[in-house]
């Protein structure tokens, strides 16, 4: 028998741990199903918040207006893609009562009610007489956050103000004309009005060629094809979260081999300690890569996720973040002495790092000190790098610095882990 080769030994160790992994349903659920489940639930749950997804913000519209002005506002609202307006429920027109009931029953969470005197209020003539005010009522489920409702209120307000201005312009011209030259004959007055309106056309009355328009663009250098939807926000976040569960598997496997004495058998075999370590890291690194392929492939199939322009970039980030996760695994294996310690420690560590790193809640909503703390986690860098590629449309070269940071984390974990590692 020739001496065993290192490569064969590493293969044997790797195959062994992969075999143990596929025979462990709990491990499979933890690494493969858990992130997928979070992605599904969270994406459907939060799709309204992120908007732009396939689920628009739904409004119930109750139009009691006797004139044409409310209809015009509703038409304006319909130009916004992420708004879906419903004026009927089960083929019957909505009333205030039926809209309220739908919100109470939790079937919808927003309703806008235009009052009967809406047009009358908009179209009232200028002058010194008593002003009429009409109240547009927005009924919102109290469970909706103000971050969600406030921008909607602002949008609605904008539309109503524009309508009311446009409704008042002809009346205003009338008033000005009569107030300044009450003696002019009637046909002169019509000609003046038409002239004044033409002069303001496209300007104040906002028909065409608006003087000010809004255009939505991305920062220079980002080649965005479309806005991120909830899945594009959540898939990288929960994938990274799921990747790091390898820490629990790897460290658990090391402690189990120590406890069960199989490590001692390996220590007696003609095999270097480096081979033993590589043979322990490689299978879990491979499991990480399989997790990534599994989650990304399913995201593409199920939600039509797109992965940006740079396959190389996605691969580089994936390799780096997996190295971080396996590295952290060997680190934890070196620090934890017992399996009981390991259980508590890893759950705390993994949830904490993921939360700080923005896997659950995007980091841009965090206060700045928390954002700064988050930079100490590989999760934040990985998430940012994935979103550069998936959402911001960056290429390989642009994510390289972040890949570098991830690689530095990985090296740090490996070095400390290997240094503190005990084989017995």
């Amino acid at each position, binding site marked *: *028998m*020739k*001496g065993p*080769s290192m490569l064969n030994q590493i293969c044997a160790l790797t195959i062994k741990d992969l075999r*143990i992994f596929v*025979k462990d349903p709990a491990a499979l659920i933890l690494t493969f199903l858990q992130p997928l489940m979070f992605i599904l639930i969270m994406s459907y749950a939060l799709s309204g918040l992120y908007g732009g997804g396939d689920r628009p913000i739904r409004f119930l519209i109750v139009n009691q207006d006797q004139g044409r002005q409310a209809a015009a506002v509703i038409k304006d609202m319909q130009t916004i893609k992420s708004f879906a307006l419903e004026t009927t429920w089960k083929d019957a027109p909505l009333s205030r009562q039926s809209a309220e009931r739908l919100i109470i029953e939790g079937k919808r969470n927003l309703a806008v009610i235009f009052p009967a005197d809406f047009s009358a209020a908009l179209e009232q003539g200028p002058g010194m007489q008593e002003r009429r005010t009409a109240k547009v009522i927005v009924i919102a489920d109290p469970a909706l956050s103000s971050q969600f409702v406030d921008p909607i209120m602002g949008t609605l307000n904008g539309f109503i103000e524009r309508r009311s201005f446009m409704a008042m312009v002809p009346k205003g011209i009338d008033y000005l004309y009569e107030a300044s030259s009450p003696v002019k004959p009637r046909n002169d007055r019509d000609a003046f009005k038409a002239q004044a309106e033409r002069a303001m056309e496209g300007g104040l009355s906002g028909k065409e060629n608006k003087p000010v328009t809004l255009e939505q663009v991305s920062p220079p250098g980002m080649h965005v094809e479309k806005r991120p939807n909830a899945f594009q926000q959540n898939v990288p976040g929960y994938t990274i979260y799921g990747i790091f569960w390898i820490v629990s598997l790897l460290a658990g496997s090391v402690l189990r081999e120590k406890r*069960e*004495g199989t490590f001692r*058998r390996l220590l007696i075999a*003609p095999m270097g300690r480096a081979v033993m370590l590589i043979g322990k890291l490689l299978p879990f690194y491979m499991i990480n890569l399989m997790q990534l392929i599994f989650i990304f492939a399913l995201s593409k199939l199920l939600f039509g996720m797109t992965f940006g322009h740079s396959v190389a970039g996605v691969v580089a980030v994936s390799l780096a973040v997996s190295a971080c996760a396996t590295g952290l695994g060997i680190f934890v294996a070196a620090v934890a002495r017992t399996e009981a310690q390991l259980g508590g420690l890893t759950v705390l560590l993994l949830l904490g790092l993921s939360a700080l790193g923005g896997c659950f809640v995007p980091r841009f909503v965090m206060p700045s000190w928390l954002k700064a703390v988050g930079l100490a986690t590989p999760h934040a860098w990985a998430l940012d790098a994935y979103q550069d590629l998936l959402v911001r449309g960056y290429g390989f070269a642009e994510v390289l610095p972040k890949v570098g940071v991830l690689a530095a984390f990985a090296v740090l974990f490996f070095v400390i882990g290997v240094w503190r590692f005990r084989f017995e």
Partner: protein
Amino acid sequence: MIDVRGLIKRYGSNAVVNNISFSVAEGEIFGLLGPNGAGKTTVISILATLLHPDGGAVSISGYDVTRQANRVKPMIGFVPQDLALYPTLSAFDNLSFFARIYGFKGKALSDKVESSLDMVDLRNRAHDAVQTFSGGMKRRLNIAAGLIHDPRVLFLDEPTVAVDPQSRNFIFEHVEKLKRAGMTILYTTHYMEEAERLCDRVAIMDHGEILALDTPKKLIGLLASGLIRVKLPSDKVPVVAAGARDLPHVREASSQDDVVKIVTDDPLSTLPALIRLCDARSAAMLSLEMLEPNLETVFLHLTGKRLRE
């Protein structure tokens, strides 16, 4: 084959192996006997390159186990006291993993694994997970795993602890077969009857020291035809011990705390004389034991302690 000189291992200030020396010839079965905590596993771990000694020298086939561990490792096989197998993998996968680690490949690998499974009579359970095995089956597989690379030297650390009689017999026969095939075996146990049956020579250990080392026959010979132990009030011990030396057939009489130990060629003639002696010295016998000569009794004789209590 195995040479141990002045071996010392300390944990803190506590020397758990305290300056022991012995050597084992090629093809010999050598027993390390001793009660719990005697230091048997510690010695075997040092020999198997798992632990570094704090003093002394150990060599196997001329190679130093600390400095030339790489030369030693391919030669040695180890069957640990506790099972060391992957419980969720099958017997076949366990053995083929260990075989691969030792360099087996392809056809040679599967042949080797199958013959190993045959050897320990687990062929029909080859593809079941080890965790579904009985205790005895696991022990047998544990032994097969230590032998997968046909080592020249085998360390067996209490292979029969918590084993049913059937598996135990299987293990005995297996060890005898390995001996016939010329393997050198170091066997630890605290069952003296095992050592008597299997070992060419035994070392009796307690508190990290070797108390006696010889063939089982010679060790038992120390006891002539039997050992009589009589417990007396402590003030009477010296006089009775002195008087006992002159009784018929007595080889040796000595005292240990409040017990007088008498080695005799004919216990049945010595006993009545001893009773008369105690009577004459007005020493009330608190207890009296007559023990047949075996390793168990040798251990009691040497240490005043029973192996299992």
